[in-house]
């Protein structure tokens, strides 16, 4: 069902929070004077692939980080599978923006993937053959098993992104949150990533992606969440991803030509 939020963020007919893998209520985050995310309600549909869409600086990444507890919100509630976030951390996998880490860090590809097993290994449990096998299997799923011993700085941007995805796969989660996984990657990587994400969906997992390429939204996703600091629209792609909602989200920032082109794509 499509929901168009009014300007003060009030909505009617909120879906059931308890059945949602990720539900956000009244979330406001601010880094300074101006809020980055203001009064956001979001209810992620189970088993779906959802894109979070909006212009630069619209609070897409901040929304994701606040939902994960990485940044502290001013107000608002987050529930994961109907429960508090902290009790559900083992069911969440996260892929941060590639540019958020220093790739000169002295570590190998396999070590990064093993970081996905932290909740299992804890402080001192030994890394055993089965852990290594699982990490190698995750690397194989993104086509990077030949690079296990490489230093991470020696990889291309697309390869680095695939290593991050392999780490998330190692987390063996029910809810996958990815921040701009397609930003600045080659076509082969984009294809590899979308294949993995679709296989996750086929296995009943829920996938949420911060996405910036409007042209691929209808191909890749079933649900969208449009945001420009405040929530704009939420629902199945066919209903919520329209020329009107895009115009409302991007305002004057989307060139007329782009709107026309999208209108043609959207029919």
């Amino acid at each position: 069902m499509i929901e168009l939020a009014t300007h003060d963020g009030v909505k009617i007919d909120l879906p059931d929070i308890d059945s949602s893998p990720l539900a956000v209520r009244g979330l406001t985050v601010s880094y300074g004077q101006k809020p980055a995310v203001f009064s956001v309600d979001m209810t992620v549909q189970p088993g779906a692939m959802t894109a979070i869409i909006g212009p630069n600086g619209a609070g897409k990444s901040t929304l994701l980080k606040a939902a994960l507890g990485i940044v502290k919100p001013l107000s608002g509630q987050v529930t994961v599978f109907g429960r508090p976030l902290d009790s559900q951390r083992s069911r969440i996998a996260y892929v941060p923006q590639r540019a958020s880490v220093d790739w000169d860090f002295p570590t190998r590809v396999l070590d990064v993937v093993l970081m996905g097993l932290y909740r299992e290994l804890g402080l001192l449990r030994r890394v055993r053959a089965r852990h290594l096998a699982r990490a190698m299997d995750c690397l194989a799923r993104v086509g990077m098993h030949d690079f296990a011993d490489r230093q991470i700085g020696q990889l291309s941007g697309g390869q680095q992104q695939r290593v991050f995805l392999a780490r998330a796969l190692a987390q063996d989660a029910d809810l996958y949150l990815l921040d701009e996984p397609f930003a600045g990657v080659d076509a082969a990587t984009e294809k590899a990533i979308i294949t993995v994400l679709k296989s996750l969906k086929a296995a009943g997992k829920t996938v949420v992606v911060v996405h910036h390429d409007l042209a691929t939204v209808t191909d890749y996703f079933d649900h969208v969440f449009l945001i420009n600091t405040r929530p704009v629209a939420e629902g199945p792609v066919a209903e919520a991803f329209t020329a009107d909602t895009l115009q409302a989200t991007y305002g004057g920032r989307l060139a007329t030509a782009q709107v026309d082109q999208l209108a043609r794509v959207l029919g």
Partner: protein
Amino acid sequence: MSGSEFVPLSLTPLLIGILTAVACALPGNFLVLRRQALIGDAISHVVLPGIVVAFLLTGIIAAWPMMLGAAGAAVVAVVLIEAIRRLGRIEPGAAMGVVFTSMFAGGVLLLEQSDTSSVHLDVEHALYGNLESLIWLDATGWSSLFDPVALAGLPVELIRILIALAGVGGFIWLFWRPLKLSTFDEGFARTVGIRADLLGFALVIVAAVAAVAAFDAVGSIIVIAMFICPPAAARMMTNTLEGQIGWSVAFAVLSASLGYVLAGYGPLWLGAADAVSAAGMIATVSGMILALAARFGPCRARTGAPLNS
């Protein structure tokens, strides 16, 4: 040199130099990778006001009150740096610079205004320490290592730095995985339940403990050099964190022992009459090792993606 000369006169300063270098280099690895290496500089400067305040409160020159004063000042400095960084939204280096220069200057003023002129508290001592004076007079030779009476006379600085090193080593061993994970990718570390903020604070406190224990024996020059030079040189020798830690320990030991020997005998070999400061020479050697690693190290090429691209 025979054991009867070496053990009482050189063994303990050499050991203290080596242990100090290792105790500072270990946390230095993480500080360098987190771009917080300047914290060693900050801590070794704020130690001065801490010591002066401790003296003013107790009225005596004694090791424990001064260590506590120094540690207290280090904690105050770390909290101030964090507060300024967050409230002012500025980069950590700038916050450190503001805090440690102000606190150090305050310490100098305090020292001048108060009646401490009669006691031995001076800036020069704070910088260079006095490694050569930490001798073991109860020792008569190698056999003293097994003599309980002689062992009781070991310099207390040696015991202190041993305890500090055990603390530093234990902390890094126990928290190895969360330290590595949160140093590489803090956001991800938080999502798997690691309290990255607390861990970062604990790391700086551990570094402060090492710096304070080292400061008393060897002065701040070695402390600053050892936090940065061995880890930075080690990074250029290997591409794994485990390897970097190993190389940094090796470079720290090499700097301390080579520096100590060169300071004691180098000038004599060159025909000069007096030895030079061991602390200064140790720091110089570590800098030369860094220069060599930067020129010839196998892993010195930066290949990663630029930050905030």
